[in-house]
């Protein structure tokens, strides 16, 4: 640093340069020893911040290990009902199931297949009117190594079959989108190696 000459650049501008990688003043900054020293200081400050955060996370994890269980127990998460889907009943009955329950069912069916983890699941169509066509859209995270076309067909068949038994929805299509491929499980032979068809 040259103490006799202050180039007058402010720390704000240098921080912005560091954040964005560009600056209208880049030509000066890149060749000014004073700015370069400041940039180096900012960089090591950020590096120290990351290290400090690592330490913080380590001690947040280590301190009284039961804290997270306590918080989880306190959350008491309520499930989401979504729309109401009517079911045929007697004259005096008003039977229905919730959209949330149907989606949970699709999730369970999908999750039970080897290599499949269900993401978002949506029922498209007016489920509140009996007989209206409904399309099921499912996002799937697949385990690497499972042939996708076969997996998609297996999933479609299983979802169709289950919804036919458990609901009165007029399911006209089951759309499967693979949104994620997870790396294969290494090590233990158990788990999702099987095709999971039953």
């Amino acid at each position, binding site marked *: 640093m040259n103490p006799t000459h202050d180039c007058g650049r*402010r*720390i*704000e501008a240098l*921080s912005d340069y560091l954040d964005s990688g560009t600056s209208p003043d880049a030509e000066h900054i890149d060749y000014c020893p004073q700015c370069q020293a*400041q940039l180096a*200081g*900012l960089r*090591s*400050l*950020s*590096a*120290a*911040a990351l*290290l*400090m*955060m690592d*330490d*913080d*996370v380590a*001690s*947040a*994890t280590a*301190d009284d290990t039961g*804290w*997270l269980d306590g*918080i*989880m127990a*306190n*959350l008491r*998460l309520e*499930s*989401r009902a*979504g729309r109401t889907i009517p079911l045929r009943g007697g004259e005096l009955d008003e039977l229905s199931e919730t959209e*949330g329950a149907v*989606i*949970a069912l699709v*999730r*369970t069916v999908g*999750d*039970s*297949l*080897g290599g499949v*983890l*269900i*993401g*978002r*699941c949506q029922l498209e169509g007016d489920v509140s009117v009996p007989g209206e066509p409904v399309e099921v859209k499912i*996002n799937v*995270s697949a385990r690497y190594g499972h042939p996708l076309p076969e997996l998609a067909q297996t999933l479609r068949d299983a979802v169709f079959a289950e919804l036919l038994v458990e609901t009165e929805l007029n399911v006209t299509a089951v759309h499967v989108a693979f*949104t*994620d491929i*997870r*790396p294969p*499980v290494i090590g233990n032979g158990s*788990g*999702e190696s*099987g095709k*999971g068809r*039953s």
Partner: protein
Amino acid sequence: MKQLQDLPHKLADAPDAVLAERAGDGNVAAFEMLARRHAPLMRAYARRLVNSHAEADDVVQDALIAAWKDIAHLQDGTAAKAWLMRIVSRRAVDTGRRRKSHDNLDDQPEAEAILPTPEQAAVAGSARLALNTALSRLPEEQRRCWVLKELGGQSYEEIAQALGISAASVRGRLARARTTLMKEMEEWR
């Protein structure tokens, strides 16, 4: 259904985006996995923003309750971590604001900022200790801005909104904080 017992393993290595989608659909197990994955970071971050560990745990809990209510509206599940940190930021700042209206004297970081001796800090690789010390000496308003930006990854606008000040003030406070921190860390070397 025979492979449903694998579900915990599947959830454990599912990416945030998939967990967020499931949680948005109402899957409690997926939300819990997401929460457990990021809770240590949320807790560490909250501890830097409020004045006691107990308060930090309250903030994390409130943040997770808010997150569950709102996760169906999260557009980009890959950004779930940043989203959770944003919720913690807001809750922590609100907690501080509430406390401030009650007292002004206790407005100093408590013993959680472990102060090293100069010898300890002088040891190679102890930049984080030096930073810890320097941070604890910053004025509260600057420290907050710096923590929100540097540890929480919040934008100027987000910080401005959380603190109820202008983005220009955020920039100014941040610059003063960085200048002081750099200077103090230099002295430790």
